[in-house]
């Protein structure tokens, strides 16, 4: 489980704990995969801290970047989805194409974020 700030929350991350607003109303259950829309909603509710599934690849010591972590997460999730159909060569092609598209979506979010808020510093 990793604790992340709203600025580091990315679509595709999976919630390790349920997200509630300040009034304690459940916004999203644990186990849910985050979407862009969810992030927008969290921002509008002013929720800042989240627990997401995964292991901390210690960005503090200059390990993997959050972007690389995200890419891994996306790839892992897609692999799980395709697990029953990878014996079909066409499905393998579909998997590859989808993976490429989903990756492309990631840096775009990064840029939007950088424009709107200062990047969080990792020491």
């Amino acid at each position, binding site marked *: 489980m990793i604790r992340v700030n709203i600025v580091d929350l990315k679509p*595709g991350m999976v919630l390790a704990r349920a997200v509630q607003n300040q009034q304690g109303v459940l916004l999203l259950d644990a186990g849910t995969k985050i979407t862009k829309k969810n992030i927008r909603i969290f921002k509008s509710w002013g929720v800042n801290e989240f627990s997401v599934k995964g292991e901390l690849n210690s960005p503090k010591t200059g390990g993997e970047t959050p972007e690389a972590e995200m890419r891994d997460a996306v790839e892992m999730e897609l692999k799980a*989805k395709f*697990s029953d159909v990878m014996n079909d060569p066409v*499905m393998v092609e579909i998997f590859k*194409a989808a993976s490429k598209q*989903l990756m492309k979506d990631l840096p775009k979010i990064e840029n939007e974020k950088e424009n709107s808020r200062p990047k969080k510093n990792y020491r």
Partner: protein
Amino acid sequence: MKKRIPDPKKIIDRIDDLPTLPRTVLKITELVNDPKSSAKDLARVITDDQILTARLLKLVNSSFYGIPQRISTVTGAIVLIGFDAIRNLLLTTSVFDLFADRNRKNQQKQEKFWDHSLGCAVGAKVIGNYLRHDSIEELFVAGLLHDIGKIVEMMFQPVEFSKIVAAISRENILMLTAENKIMGYNHAEIGKLLAEKWNLPAKLVQIIAHHHQPKDAGSFAMEAAIVHLADIFCRALNMGFGGDNTIPPLDRFAWQSLKIQTSAIESIMETMQDEYGDIRSFIS
């Protein structure tokens, strides 16, 4: 354990408050089917409804249609995108309305279902374009409605639905399998009955009924195959959630009959993503 396998037709009949299409949409469908009606007749009916008017103008001005100049009148919109497109647009937004806000408890799940449907609709449109299919609009609506049976289950058969959801995770099976196991029938059959009840065109009924086995759709097998493939593409691209944790297998017949080059998959998906983002902003 008590086991009863009800007939899906009975279920549909039992649900008295099963949504019916609004009168405006029925009137518009009538006008579209009548060769004597003019764009003006159609515009009169649409402009009576402010919400429909606003939606129509928003859609024609979105990049979904890619028209360079701004369209500001309903008649202009009708002339530009055509009667069938209008009917499909109104069908689309009305179906969304019908099922909205009925059950707060399921709202989030329902939204994800709609995102899945929308993803499939966009996929069917993009694949249709790639194949130079002649009725793109209809493919879009077919994609949108392909899982309508699931929405019916969610809203009107909550007990069975929660059993199905539980079985999917517990036994690691596809939703279709779980439905057949628990209810003895599935969302494709429910969807078909609803589509018939709504008097939707035979093509739509057949696509909804056979989107898992396209070749059973007879003369509409090609269209069913397009929706089948779009269904897989939109799941792969994480567009919404259709109830399955894993991606169902690609139907051999569907893939072979469409004759799509594997090298084209990437550009189809890219277009899908662009259009999906765009259209979501006007529907939701």
